[in-house]
C-alpha cells in the first residue's frame, strides 16, 4: 500500500493540474453522479411499473393522463424540467417553513425529482411497449389455466415483458448517466461540475474535460457490460439455437 501511494505521489509530482486536491474533487463528483443516477433510476423504476400497466389500461381516464405525462416529459429537454423544479419548488406555499426545506434547500433533491420524473416517463414507455408486445400464446395459456387478470399480470406478463425490455432499459440507464451531466448547471458538484471547476481554475480545458470524459466512458462500458451479462442470462431462451 505504501509502495502504491509512493508510486502515486511520484506520478503526480510535476503535474500541476492533477494534484491530490483536484483528484479528490473528481472523486467527490463521481460519488455524487453515481448516487444521483442510481437513486433516480431506482425511483423511476418503481414509478414506471404501475404507470406502464395503467398506460395499457382500457379506461381512458387512466390511460390518457399517463400518456400526456410521458408525452410532455419525453418531448421537452431535461434542462427545462430541471430549471422548473429547481426554481419552482419555492412556489409551494409554506415549504420554506416546513421540515422538507432542509432537503429542498440543497440542489440535490430538486435535481433528483426532475431526473426521476424524466426517467420514469421514458421507462414507462419502454415497459408499455414490452407489455403490449407480449406473445398472444402466453396470455392465452395463462387464461386457459384460469388465472385472474392480476395473477396473469404478476406471473406471466410482467416477468416476460421485463426480460424483453432489458436491452432498451440498458440504453435508458446509459442515457440517464449522460443526461445527469446537466446537474452541474444547478450548482451540484457532480463529475461534470468537478471538471468545470478544474477547467476554470487552471484554464486547462483539454486535461479537465478529457479526463472526465474517460471516467464517463469507463462508467458507460461498465453499465454496458453488466447489461450484456444480464441479457445473456435472462434472454437465453430467446437466442437462436447454436447461436
Amino acid at each position, binding site marked *: 500500500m505504501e509502495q502504491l501511494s509512493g508510486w502515486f505521489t511520484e506520478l503526480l509530482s510535476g503535474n500541476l493540474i492533477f494534484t491530490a486536491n483536484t483528484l479528490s474533487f473528481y472523486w467527490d463528483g463521481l460519488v455524487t453522479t453515481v448516487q444521483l443516477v442510481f437513486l433516480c433510476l431506482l425511483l423511476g423504476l418503481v414509478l414506471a411499473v404501475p404507470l406502464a400497466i395503467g398506460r395499457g389500461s382500457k379506461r381512458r381516464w387512466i390511460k390518457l393522463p399517463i400518456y400526456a405525462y410521458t408525452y410532455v416529459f419525453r418531448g421537452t*429537454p431535461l*434542462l427545462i424540467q430541471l430549471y422548473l423544479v429547481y426554481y419552482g419548488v419555492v412556489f409551494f406555499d409554506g415549504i420554506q417553513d416546513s421540515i422538507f426545506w432542509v432537503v429542498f434547500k440543497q440542489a440535490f433533491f430538486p435535481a433528483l425529482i426532475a431526473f426521476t420524473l424524466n426517467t420514469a416517463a421514458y421507462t414507462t414507455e419502454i415497459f408499455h411497449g414490452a407489455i403490449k408486445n407480449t406473445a398472444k400464446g402466453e396470455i392465452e395459456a395463462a387464461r386457459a389455466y384460469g388465472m385472474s387478470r392480476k395473477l396473469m399480470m404478476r406471473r406471466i406478463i410482467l416477468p416476460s415483458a421485463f426480460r424483453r425490455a432489458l436491452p432498451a432499459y440498458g440504453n435508458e440507464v446509459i442515457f440517464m448517466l449522460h443526461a445527469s451531466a*446537466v446537474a452541474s448547471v444547478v450548482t451540484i458538484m457532480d463529475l461534470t461540475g468537478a471538471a468545470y471547476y478544474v477547467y476554470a481554475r487552471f484554464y486547462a480545458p483539454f486535461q479537465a474535460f478529457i479526463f472526465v470524459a474517460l471516467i464517463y466512458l469507463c462508467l458507460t462500458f461498465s453499465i454496458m457490460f453488466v447489461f450484456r451479462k444480464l441479457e445473456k442470462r435472462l434472454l437465453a431462451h430467446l437466442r437462436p439455437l447454436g447461436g
Partner: protein
Amino acid sequence: MIDLQGYGPRLLEGALVTVELAVLSLILAVILGLLTASAKLSRNRLIHALGTLYTTLVRGVPDLVLMMLLFYGGQIGINMLTDQLYYAFDIDIFINVNAFVAGVITIGLIFGAYMGETFRGAFQAVEEGQMEAARAYGMSPLLAFRHVRFPLMMRHALPGIGNNWMVLLKTTALVSIIGLTDMVRVAAEATKATHEPFMFMIPVAMVYLLIATLSEWGFARLTKRYNTGFGESSEWNN
C-alpha cells in the same frame, strides 16, 4: 395573453436560434453520418477502425462534456494551431470561434455518430439483389446509388433519423449552458431576473412540444412516401 414582461421578442429570437441550430446541425449530422456509415462498411481496416472509434467515443461520453470540451477547448486549440503556423511559416491569422458555429459543429459531431449507426444498419438492410438488378440494367454506380440504394436505405433509416432528430432537438437546450442565447437561456435569464420560472419555462417547453409534434407529423408523411410499394406502412415509434 400571457404577460412576458417584455421578454417576448427576445424569447422569439431565442426560438429562432434554437430552430436554426437544430436544422443546421441535423444537416451536418446527416453528412457525417453517411460518411461514418461508409467508413464502418469499408473493407479498409484503418478506415473501419476510425469509424468505430468515432462512434464509440462520442456515444460513451455525455453531450454536455463533449460540448464543453469542444467549445472551451476549441478556441485554445485553434490559437495553438495558428501560433504554430506563425512560428513555422510566418503566417499571421486569427480565427475567432463563433458561439453559434461552435454549437452547430459540436451537435453535428455528436449526432453524426448516432446517425452513422442508423445509416450503417439501414445500408445493411438493403438486399444485394436490388443492387445486382440495378447493375444488370447498366446503371452507373452513382446512378444506382441515387435511384436504388439510397431510397431503399432511407426506408430503413427513417425511424432512426426521426428518433435522432427528437433527441437532437432537446440537446440544443444544452448550448444555453455554454453561452449561446437560445430560448432556454433567455428563459433562464428572465427567471433569474423576475423570479417567475413558470411564466418563462412553460412557454419554452410548449415550443419544444410544438416542434416535436410537427416533426412527428412530417416524419409520418416521409415514412409513407418511402414505404411506397412496400404495402403497409411500418409504424414510426419514438
